[in-house]
């Protein structure tokens, strides 16, 4: 993979995640108790041996910059290669929407690298993959472009790009639609292609008024290229809506998903290192089927939930089917069910709050309930 330069696009739309992602990029969303969504893209790259990674910064970049810093925690703080930040095109220079103008503005990053291939990924997917296999597949198929997909194990809502392939893995149809059915092949927004192909697509599409890399750059010109599709058979979650976010987090409560995502010895998911003490379980603690991050103190009951760093659960408090982000405080006797609480939320004594399975109740940052 030394011949591959990675680009991670953090410029995705976050319209469907408004409450959680209003002032941070989707990729900076906390996930599974201690991670952020972008950790998966970064870790997948480095675990696969991609040593040079460009990060296209979102509009709200402070959380991402603060999380990633030099990239040291992902082994990307290097003298040669390593991490490069690619800020968005200056506002005002171009009023077009879409990610293409930002890719265009940073095209020199890929072109001036000494690499042969670009691996371009959008980062709002959660999965653990070895991209080396994708490169091998790409070469074996002699493809112009290889895209990664998974077969849906249930129906999806929202924008989906689905493909059809011939038996040898060549893409025969490629379409964007609203929603997709179980069993369809859904594109995971990760593309591998030679640098000149990437540069040609970006440049020719942008200079003819295109706005979106996938729609305008690839789908509209699919006929010009030999596009292969690589199936990722493991766990995949897409985080495009609050419901998807809620579900993906709770999927991590399945031991097989937890192990596949996080406990692969050669493919660990790295994240920003923080000091936090081990979890302290007190006398009356009762915890079932939950993920608990360091720094928590648990006096009460926790079930089917995910607790991020530094959450405290008071005496007699009950947490069920909920996600509590960093430093939430659930005071004595409070009860919380089907809730997503953002950072630093305080649920005061004996207070009860409850959402429903598909519409979790969202408590915004720093709120005191």
């Amino acid at each position, binding site marked *: 993979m030394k011949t591959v330069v990675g680009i991670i696009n953090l410029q995705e739309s976050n319209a469907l995640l408004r409450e959680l992602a209003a002032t941070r990029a989707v990729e900076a969303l906390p996930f599974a*108790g*201690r991670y952020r969504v972008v950790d998966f893209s970064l870790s997948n790259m480095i675990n696969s041996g991609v040593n040079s990674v460009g990060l296209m910064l979102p509009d709200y970049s402070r959380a991402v910059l603060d999380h990633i810093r030099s990239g040291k925690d992902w082994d990307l703080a290097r003298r040669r290669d390593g991490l490069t930040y690619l800020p968005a095109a200056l506002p005002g220079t171009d009023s077009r929407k879409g990610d293409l103008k930002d890719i265009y503005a940073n095209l020199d990053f890929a072109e001036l690298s000494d690499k042969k291939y670009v691996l371009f990924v959008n980062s709002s997917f959660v999965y653990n993959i070895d991209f080396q296999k994708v490169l091998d597949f790409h070469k074996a198929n002699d493809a112009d472009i290889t895209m990664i997909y998974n077969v849906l194990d249930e129906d999806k809502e929202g924008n989906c790009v689905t493909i059809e392939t011939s038996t040898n893995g060549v893409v025969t149809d490629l379409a964007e639609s609203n929603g997709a059915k179980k069993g369809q092949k859904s594109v995971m927004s990760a593309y591998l292609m030679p640098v000149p192909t990437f540069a040609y697509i970006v440049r020719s599409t942008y200079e003819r008024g295109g706005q979106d890399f996938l729609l305008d750059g690839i789908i509209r010109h699919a006929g010009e290229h030999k596009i292969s599709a690589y199936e990722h058979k493991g766990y995949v979650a897409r985080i495009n809506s609050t419901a998807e976010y809620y579900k993906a987090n709770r999927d991590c409560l399945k031991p097989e998903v937890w192990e596949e995502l996080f406990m692969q010895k050669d493919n660990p998911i790295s994240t920003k290192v923080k000091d936090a003490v081990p979890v302290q379980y007190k006398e009356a*603690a009762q915890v079932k089927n939950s993920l*608990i991050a*360091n*720094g928590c103190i648990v006096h009460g009951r926790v079930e089917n939930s*995910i607790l991020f760093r530094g959450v405290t659960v008071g005496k007699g408090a009950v947490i069920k089917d909920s996600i509590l982000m960093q430093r939430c405080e659930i005071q004595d006797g409070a009860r919380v069910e089907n809730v997503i609480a953002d950072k630093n939320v305080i649920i005061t004594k004996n207070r009860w709050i409850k959402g429903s399975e598909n519409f979790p109740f969202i408590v915004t940052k720093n709120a005191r309930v």
Partner: protein
Amino acid sequence: MRKTECLGMILAGGQGSRLKALTKTVAKPAVPFGGKYRIIDFPLSNCVNSGITKVGVLTQYKPFELHNYLGAGSAWDLDRIDGGVFILPPYAREKGADWYRGTADAIYQNLNFIDLTDPDYVLILSGDHIYTMDYSWMLEAHKQNNADITIGVFEVPWEEAPRFGIMVTDKETGRITEFQEKPKDPKSNLASMGIYIFSKPFLKKYLEEDGVNENSTHDFGNDLIPKMLADGARLFSYAFDGYWKDVGTIESLWQANMDLLQENPPFELNGDWKIYSSNPSMPPHYIGPDGEVKKSMVTEGAQIFGTVEQSVIFSGVKIGKGAKVTNSVVLPFTKIEDGAVVDHAILAQDVVIKAGAKVEGKEGEIAVIAEGDVVG
């Protein structure tokens, strides 16, 4: 290097033979403690939190894992351009090579390092005590007393005093008048904590004398302190009244772990006085549908499907269905299979307790399973 006010020197060369099963592959200061720490995290974090940013770590016994753990010191914010952690193993010179022959000799052989950092004061610490302490107050006292050496002391029960080095002091001023090494008949119950602040020229003078003295055992307690007292030097005590534990034996190491599990622990890992540690990339721990965890500490990467009570669980530990772990300390990546029972035990790293097997110690006779062993 720039001038340093106070240089820290941590004696981390000890084999820790009384912790045998836990020091098969590592030096005592690298033994894991408290769910995610190693013993040396405590003196190192104390240094950083006290504003001491140049620290020499003197190693000798199986230092590889310790060296690797310390790395450039970034975990303790000690990867500094002018400062940080300096690893000081024994070394060869033009005229031969010597192992460290004692605590004082270890410092003596590194006088060139001390000169290089050019400190006014040298703080000498042991790498095997669990405590949190602000050395800057002790340094302040040292300056105020215009002392040659200040020794940290800790009040122990009178009946235990015969096990320690005892300082007899002037009650008013804290000046040390007599030193008794493990006295049958102690005149005081102030035990030395093995924490010394020396004014540097004074230290250098005594070390240079001791270094060439063939009758010396080259130990601070045995040789140097008695000589300093005899010479009428200004020795002062500095009393510390927080939590302090020498974890040199299996029982005391076990006890110190259990102390963390009290409803109100005698010292805070969670407070402003941060204990820094190297953090692996591990997911939050998972507690299964039938898991039960009480009065315990559990860290990232563990998976618990059984019952845990009054225990400290390190990262990557897996506890199977129906297994029961009580009053125990389980070090990283150890597996306790379904239905196994562990009580009053310390399980080292990478141990496997097979399904249904039992490891049962009792208070005063803690069971220990050595690294990599398989039981049952």
